[in-house]
């Protein structure tokens, strides 16, 4: 008996810890499915952004359609939906998973289950997905598949006894993965005649086609000319093109029906009209209920981004606008700083998101940037009854009109080898963490639970955690809510002038320590001048730390370099150029790097 259309479709994703081999397995499956010749095979087809490849992580979800002939000689369509791999993009991950019916869980045969794996497995289970464990890298000498099987059963509670033992890299047992996917993941069961109901799991802006919306069709059919409506944004468009995802390219088709995964274009100019998690339906015949789980994502971390060269302000605006086309969660608005001139206050999902945007601006748009210390949003309750959301320390009102302040707090989970529990607890304590509890996952691994103020982890928490645990800890957090805290604004004064771009908000008890470290850092960054420069940290009028950059004593070229006068001239020109690139604070020239270096206040 031949199978129905939907019975031959499987929609799934691959879940893995960062280096457990997700991309390699995806590549191998693409290659095995025969849609791609060896020659077309890029090293990692799914991760097609340069930046991602270097970081080894996937930022934007993407999808690929595989055609696989199984052992019964039946041809199946397998839609593999890729997921981003970082806590900043938790929501995107959850929407990608919601588009699937099952997931392949890849676990490294040597490393075992890691924190990040856990977080995503829970997301998958929350979405009621069938999870198929697969043990990868069994060709490694250090592989312990039996131990890892037990671990999967003990920690996650999945039956792993029949998990395929594979090596994506060495091409061992990949067919078993296909067979499992076909056998164990349920096929979609939508109604293709019902009103259209499709889930957006990604979208991006294309200069020719406008926004390309990636979606999973749950019910109904969409084709060229279908008038569609995005239910959350209530925007309506007429479909121009539909299609599915070939490896590395889009393949247009006549229509997409219930159960399928594909894309549509509709001359949409703004990516923020097509929010991830929103439901696409027909404008004339809307579905009754939108798919559940949609939420609007809000930035958690803010910082100022300024062009190193003031003349590049417009270029920076253009670049941010272009990035925003593809990244609805990036927010920005103009900001003016006395020290840094014109720039933008930008909002991000988290620190990684911030770093990625910053790197893309620098790399893809060739901009030289100065970034100010990241800040969270504080709630300030005023004596006159008003409440302000404060994301820029410079805007903090005078303490005399503030009734109380609240800061965002996250609930954090740190999974780590038990040897490091002491040092990590000490770190959390230093960062004003509130201990919630600890569970042993197995004899040598534990999960520590803390409530941590967000502003304590946006500086260098990851770095310090990594160095204290030699990279063995993993960290996951979600916003818990706001709580009252005694917060103060710390100002830095260079030669007795406040440098607004260096001001930040800090807990009272940490202010002196932070101020001292900032002053020490600045002392190292500010070159000697002809005169002595005091560097001070202050809360209001009270100076809490001071360093001094002593006057310059020597700046002289001893040698004459033969008759090479051009070389001398170029050296002097470089010196003059360097001065030009500095920021003038009163009569003091401060290098751009000073603004950045204070962001990294190492604890060790």
């Amino acid at each position, binding site marked *: 008996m031949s199978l129905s259309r939907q019975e031959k479709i499987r929609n799934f994703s691959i879940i893995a810890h960062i280096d457990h081999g997700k991309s390699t397995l995806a590549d191998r499956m693409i290659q095995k499915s025969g849609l791609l010749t060896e020659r077309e095979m890029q090293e990692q087809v799914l991760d097609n952004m340069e930046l991602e490849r270097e970081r080894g992580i996937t930022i934007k979800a993407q999808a690929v359609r595989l055609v696989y002939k199984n052992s019964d000689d039946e041809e199946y369509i397998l839609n593999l939906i890729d997921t981003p791999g970082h806590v900043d993009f938790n929501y995107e991950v959850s929407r990608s998973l919601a588009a699937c019916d099952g997931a392949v869980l890849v676990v490294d045969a040597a490393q075992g289950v890691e924190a990040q794996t856990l977080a995503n497995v829970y997301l998958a289970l929350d979405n009621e997905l069938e999870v198929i464990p697969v043990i990868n890298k069994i060709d490694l000498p250090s592989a312990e598949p039996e131990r890892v099987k037990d671990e999967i059963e003990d920690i996650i509670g999945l039956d792993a006894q029949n998990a395929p033992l594979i090596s994506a890299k060495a091409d061992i047992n990949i067919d078993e993965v296909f067979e499992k996917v076909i056998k164990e993941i349920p096929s979609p069961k939508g109604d293709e005649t019902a009103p259209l109901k499709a889930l957006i799991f990604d979208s991006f802006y294309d200069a020719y086609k406008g926004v390309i919306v990636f979606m999973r069709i749950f019910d109904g059919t969409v084709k060229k000319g279908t008038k569609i409506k995005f239910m959350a944004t209530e925007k309506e468009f007429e479909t121009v093109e539909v299609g599915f995802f070939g490896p590395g390219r889009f393949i247009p088709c006549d229509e997409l029906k219930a159960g399928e995964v594909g894309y549509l274009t509709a001359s949409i100019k703004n990516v923020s009209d097509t929010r991830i998690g929103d439901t696409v339906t027909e404008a004339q015949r809307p579905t009754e209920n939108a798919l559940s789980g949609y939420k609007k994502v809000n930035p958690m971390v803010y910082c100022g981004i300024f062009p190193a060269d003031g003349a590049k302000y417009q270029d920076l605006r253009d670049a941010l606008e272009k990035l925003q086309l593809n990244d609805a969660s990036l927010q920005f608005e103009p900001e003016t700083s006395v020290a840094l001139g014109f720039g933008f206050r930008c909002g991000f999902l988290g620190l990684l998101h911030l770093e990625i945007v910053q790197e893309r601006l620098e790399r893809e748009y060739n901009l030289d940037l100065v970034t100010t210390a990241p800040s969270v949003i504080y709630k300030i309750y005023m004596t006159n009854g008003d409440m302000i959301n404060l994301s820029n320390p410079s805007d903090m009102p005078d303490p005399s009109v503030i009734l109380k302040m609240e800061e965002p707090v996250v609930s954090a989970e740190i999974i780590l080898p038990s040897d490091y529990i002491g040092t990590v607890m000490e770190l959390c304590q230093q960062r004003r963490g509130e201990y919630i509890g600890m569970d042993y996952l197995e004899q040598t691994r534990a999960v520590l639970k803390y409530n941590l103020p967000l502003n304590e982890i946006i500086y260098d928490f990851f770095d310090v955690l990594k160095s204290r645990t030699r990279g063995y800890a993993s960290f996951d957090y979600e916003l818990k809510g706001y709580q009252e805290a005694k917060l103060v604004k710390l100002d830095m004064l260079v030669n007795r002038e406040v440098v607004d771009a260096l001001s930040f908000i800090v807990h009272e008890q940490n202010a002196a320590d932070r101020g001292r470290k900032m002053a020490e850092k600045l002392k190292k960054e500010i070159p000697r001048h002809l005169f002595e420069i005091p560097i001070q940290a202050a809360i209001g009028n009270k100076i809490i730390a001071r360093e001094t950059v002593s006057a310059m004593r020597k*700046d002289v070229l001893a040698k004459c370099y033969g008759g090479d006068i051009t070389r001398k001239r170029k050296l002097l020109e470089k010196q003059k150029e360097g001065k030009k690139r500095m920021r003038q604070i009163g009569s003091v020239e401060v290098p751009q790097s000073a603004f950045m270096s204070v962001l990294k206040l190492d604890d060790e």
Partner: protein
Amino acid sequence: MDYSENNDLSLYIHVPFCASKCLYCDFLSFSDKNAYFEDYKKAVINEIKSFTNKQKYKVNTIFIGGGTPSLMSENFICDILECIYNNFHITNNAEITIETNPVTVDKKKANCFKKAGINRVSIGLQAWQNHILKIIGRIHTRDQFLECFNIMRNAGFDNINIDIMFSLPKQSENDWEETVENILVLEPEHVSAYSLIIEEKTPFYKLYEENKLDVVSDDIDRNMYEFVKKKLKENGYIHYEISNFAKNGFECRHNIVYWKRKEYAGFGLGAHSFINGKRYSNTINIDEYIKFNYIAETEKIGLRDSYAEFMFLGLRMIEGIERKSFKNEFGIDIDNVYKNEIEKNIKNGLLTDKNGVIKLTNKGIDLSNVVFAEFL
């Protein structure tokens, strides 16, 4: 072109070979290309011969620098000098200098140099202490330097420079004072005292980057500089350029040509010339050079850059710049170009402007790059 008037010219010959490279040195020099000696000599001789308008000039100074010219055979040096003598008009009292390193010169070589017309030698000592010599990658000891100095004196050289360096790694203020005091005993006519510069692309730079180099603080560096200035002055030397000191009448005329923006022709690998307002630089590729492909770059110095050069070179001379010499050179009053810059530097205590002479103050010498950069 006016052939009747004999223009002053200085000649520089570059010898890019050393027995081994010192760890701080970024000069163009090789320690592994001895096989090139003969071809290199031929190429230099050919370059000298092919210099145009030779008859237009009279040559006042010749400087054979390197590298280590004294590493070369007597013939190498003498053949090149002979070629110069055959092709250029050399004035009677021309200053002819060779740079030397201890160990590379014996009595016979020294006598030969003298006979070939060389009348000034510069000896690289750098430091008096053997352990410091070792740290900076010198191949000689203090005793070998003394032997070299004596050989030169005995060969009849009565104009000798000694190169010394301060702010070397592991060098204490005591070490530096010992170095200065000991060379004074020898009564050299000229002393060059250089503060170490950690140049990119040197082994020292790499160590510096890795935080493995004992760097002397700026404060100690300036103490050392103050000491050498004071000590040499007490002993009758004139401090005439930032790093150079001489007994009266023994100032290095060749280097003064550079500071005063006079014309010079450089021969050899990577050598520089300044003729007719243009700066030329030779190729730094030795394989190209020995194929007689000499000039790599020509740069016409515009008016603005010429002003700047005049200032940042001229101010290196301790006597300073005469206002009228600027006017003679460019036909314009210096205030029309640099009034603000001069005033700013006077205000900062880095320059003085008295009796028609603009010069660096002591503080201005220490911070001379700050001053010079203003004139660009």
